[in-house]
């Protein structure tokens, strides 16, 4: 298929994108460091930035305020009943952190961080996760070399992995079926059940309920 792709006659729709146009939007970064702009940031500079622009949601130690995401800790929890998946405990590559912060954080002001600020705050999140020391300076040159604890933790989709067969009769032993009911009261059902005390069906409605 890729042969015919380049061989075919273009229809002539759209126009060439200029290098300048592309540069402004081409913000993605890969594990091998491709896409990282020149720049740098220290854990120390990162701390100040983090405290002022991140900690209100993610907590001073990356512990997460209320239901906002936890960013640090959780080592060796991936096999527990309630794992804590964080940058440190779960993420395979440091590039993802830089890329994500630069494209999406802080939540309410995406794309407001400069390149150097992104290096700094990324360094600080790595520091919160004990991945770098407090005197570390993150740069275009060293980011791809950072080894994340869970870098070997992933494997490519190998489904179907849970085979069933189209059995029609005696597919289970009736006496071995165990039926577990619903934990009640935590989903909005007021629109079809009159007898329950349940959450509202939107965040706004739930908030005004609780106020």
């Amino acid at each position, binding site marked *: 298929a890729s042969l015919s792709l380049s061989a075919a006659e273009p229809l002539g729709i*759209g126009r060439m994108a200029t290098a300048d146009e592309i540069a402004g*939007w081409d913000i993605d970064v890969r594990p091998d460091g491709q896409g990282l702009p020149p720049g740098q940031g220290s854990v120390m500079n990162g701390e100040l930035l983090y405290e002022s622009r991140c900690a209100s949601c993610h907590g001073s130690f990356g512990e997460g305020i209320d239901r906002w995401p936890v960013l640090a800790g959780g080592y060796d929890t*991936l096999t527990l009943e309630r794992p804590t998946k964080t*940058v440190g405990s779960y993420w395979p590559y440091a590039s993802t952190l830089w*890329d994500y912060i630069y*494209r999406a954080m802080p939540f309410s002001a995406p794309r407001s961080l400069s390149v150097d600020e992104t290096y700094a705050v990324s360094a600080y999140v790595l520091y919160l996760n004990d991945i770098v020391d407090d005197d570390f300076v993150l740069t275009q040159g060293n980011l791809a070399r950072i080894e994340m604890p869970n870098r070997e933790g992933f494997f490519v989709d190998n489904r179907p992995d849970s085979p069933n067969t189209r059995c029609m009769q005696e597919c289970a032993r009736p006496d071995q079926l165990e039926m*577990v009911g619903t934990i009640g009261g935590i989903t*909005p*059902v007021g629109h079809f059940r009159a007898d329950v005390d349940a959450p509202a069906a939107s965040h706004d409605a739930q*908030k005004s309920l609780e106020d």
Partner: protein
Amino acid sequence: AAAASGVAVAASVNTDNLPPNEPSWSRQLGHGVVDSPYGMPSTYEQHVVRRTVPWLTAESISSISMTPLADLKGIITPNGLVFERYHAGVPLINPDEHRLILHGLVERPLIFTMDDLMRFPSASEIKFIECPANGGMEWKGAQMEALQFTHGMLSCCEWTGVPLRVLLQEAGVKPEGKWILAEGADGAHMSRSIPLEKALDDTLVVYAQNGERLRPEQGYPLRLINPGWEGNTSIKWLRRLEVGDQPWYHREETSKYTDLLANGKARKFSFVQEANSVITHPCPEKPIRQSGFIEIEGLAWSGRGHIKQVDISFDGGVSWVPAQLKGLVLPKALTRFSLVTRWEGQTWLLQARAMDETGYVQPTLKQLREVRGTNSIYHKNSIHTWKVAANGEVTNVQIT
């Protein structure tokens, strides 16, 4: 007919409007044309809306709302009820100021306006879209008390756009090109890596849903649709496509949308939504109200193609009977199944089990948990159970 089944007159019914009387609305004029240039449902249908479960997310901006499947018929989801999922709220984009850039390992990096994109030959396809977290709240146990919350991260529309293949052809993909990064124009700049193989197969760059331009919540003015794949890959508010030689491992394909198994290892690039099904009638929102004839109805779907067969069990999976598929049976689209029977107050443990064209049979919850544990979050497509009580009430249960 029907001694057993009477016309149930609810307390609120005004008998002045029942025959032999002439109802009030038959004795007067209604509103005229273009009273609503763009029409809305009857005020009597105000309960048929999207809903969320507030505690699932910190706030509504990065959250999800579910489609009211219990009230829907056929396979098309009306645009106003298509489930919502996004990470930085719904941007309000001026289509004249929206651009798509296609670059990277291509001969000719291109930039398109919406008008440009709509000049390409268009294709329209009816495809489901499902969040891979659909049903994911139930890995550890049943907790959602309604169909809208157990399965409502699921909709099906007729999508119209340009096959991504055509755009790639326009730009000329270099031989090294193997993956594509798709990126949104929302505050999250949502990004996912998509294998070139999929892009050349059936990925669509979409500007319309169910005939009209995309709704803001579904990516207006432009989005990707990766038929049969987890919804998150179908990037909304699409602004950029970069061709590369390897995947990007962005946040939504590492931190999220990877499936953690019991041994601590996680599955990555788990794109396909495997065959799944659910009974939509009866269900918690639609209990059985009358004995006698009943049509058990539901939806089945598979990211690998057509649904081939759906079976129904009344006894929690001990024995099964084949259901009928009805209406259009389209690949990677919602498919209706039906079984007519009688209900005379017996209790049921009602299940549906889908099989797709590849022969894949939807697993039991037990089978899925054995292989995947309970921390997988995503891709929970196990056989679902409704308990029908002697009074016709329906509740969500799990059989283990």
